[in-house]
C-alpha cells in the first residue's frame, strides 16, 4: 500500500547504493541516508499524525555490516555507528533521514524481521541484488502503530538534492 510519501535522490546516489550492494554481495550492505525533509506536504499522515513532506537524500554514509555471524541475511548498525552517521550529517547541515540495505538474492521487499526492528519516521531503502547484480530498489516507512510498512515512491533524477 503506498503511503503517498516521496523520496528523492540523484542518479549518482541511487547508483552508489546499488554499487554498495553489488560490492558486498553475497552479504548485505548497509548505510545511512543523509538528507532533509522538504517544505510542502504531499504525503499521507503516518508519522505521529503529521503530514509527510517530500524527503531528499543529499549524501550517503556507507557503513560496515556488524552482523559477522549471519551477513547474508542480516545487517546491523550499532548505536555508535548511528552516532557517527548523525555527526557526519550534522557537519553537512543534514539529518539522518533513513537507512539502506541490500537483500542478496531476495526481492526488495521488507521482511517480517525488517518490520519488527524498524523505527518510525526513517525511510528504509532496500536494493535487491540478484547473482551479484543490483536490481529493484524500493523504500519503506513504518506505520505509526508498527503494524505495517508503507511503500514510498522513489524519484531518481539528476541533481535531485539541489
Amino acid at each position, binding site marked *: 500500500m503506498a503511503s503517498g510519501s516521496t523520496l528523492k535522490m540523484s542518479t549518482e546516489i541511487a547508483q552508489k547504493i546499488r554499487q554498495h550492494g553489488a560490492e558486498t554481495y553475497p552479504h548485505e550492505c548497509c548505510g545511512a541516508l543523509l538528507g532533509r525533509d522538504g517544505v510542502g506536504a504531499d504525503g499521507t499522515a503516518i508519522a505521529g499524525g503529521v503530514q509527510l513532506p517530500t524527503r531528499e537524500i543529499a549524501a550517503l554514509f556507507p557503513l560496515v555490516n556488524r552482523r559477522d555471524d549471519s551477513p547474508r541475511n542480516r*545487517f*546491523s548498525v550499532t548505536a555508535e555507528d548511528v552516532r557517527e552517521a548523525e555527526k557526519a550529517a550534522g557537519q553537512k547541515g543534514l539529518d539522518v533521514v533513513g537507512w539502506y*540495505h541490500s537483500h542478496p538474492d531476495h526481492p526488495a521487499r521488507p521482511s517480517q524481521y525488517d518490520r519488527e526492528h524498524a523505527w518510525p519516521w526513517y525511510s528504509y531503502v532496500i536494493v535487491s541484488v540478484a547473482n551479484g547484480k543490483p536490481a529493484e530498489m524500493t523504500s519503506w516507512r513504518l506505520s505509526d502503530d*508498527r503494524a505495517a510498512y508503507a511503500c514510498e515512491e522513489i524519484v531518481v533524477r539528476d541533481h535531485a538534492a539541489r
Partner: protein
Amino acid sequence: MGVKVIIPTPLRPYAGKRDSTEVKAGTVGEALGRLTTEFGDLRKHLFTDEGKLRSFVNVYVNDEDIRYLAKENTPTKDGDTISIVPSIAGGCD
C-alpha cells in the same frame, strides 16, 4: 532542574516535535516512565508489549550505556542527561 532526556530524531514526531525534555526521576526506568506518560505515543516504539525496552533502543546516562550500569535501575540525579540512541537492524528473511 531535572534529568534531561534527549529524544532521537525518528521519535520526535511522537513527542511534540521536541528534541529533548526534562523529567524528575531517580532512575532511568522512572525517567522513561515519566517520558512515556507525558508522550503516550512513544511507548510502543520504546517498549515491547511485555513492557521491556526494545532490543534496538539504546539508553545512555551521561554517555554510559545503561547495559553496563544497572540497566533501568541505573540511578539518575538532577543535571544528568539520558540519551536514547537507535541501533538499526534488518535482513532479507
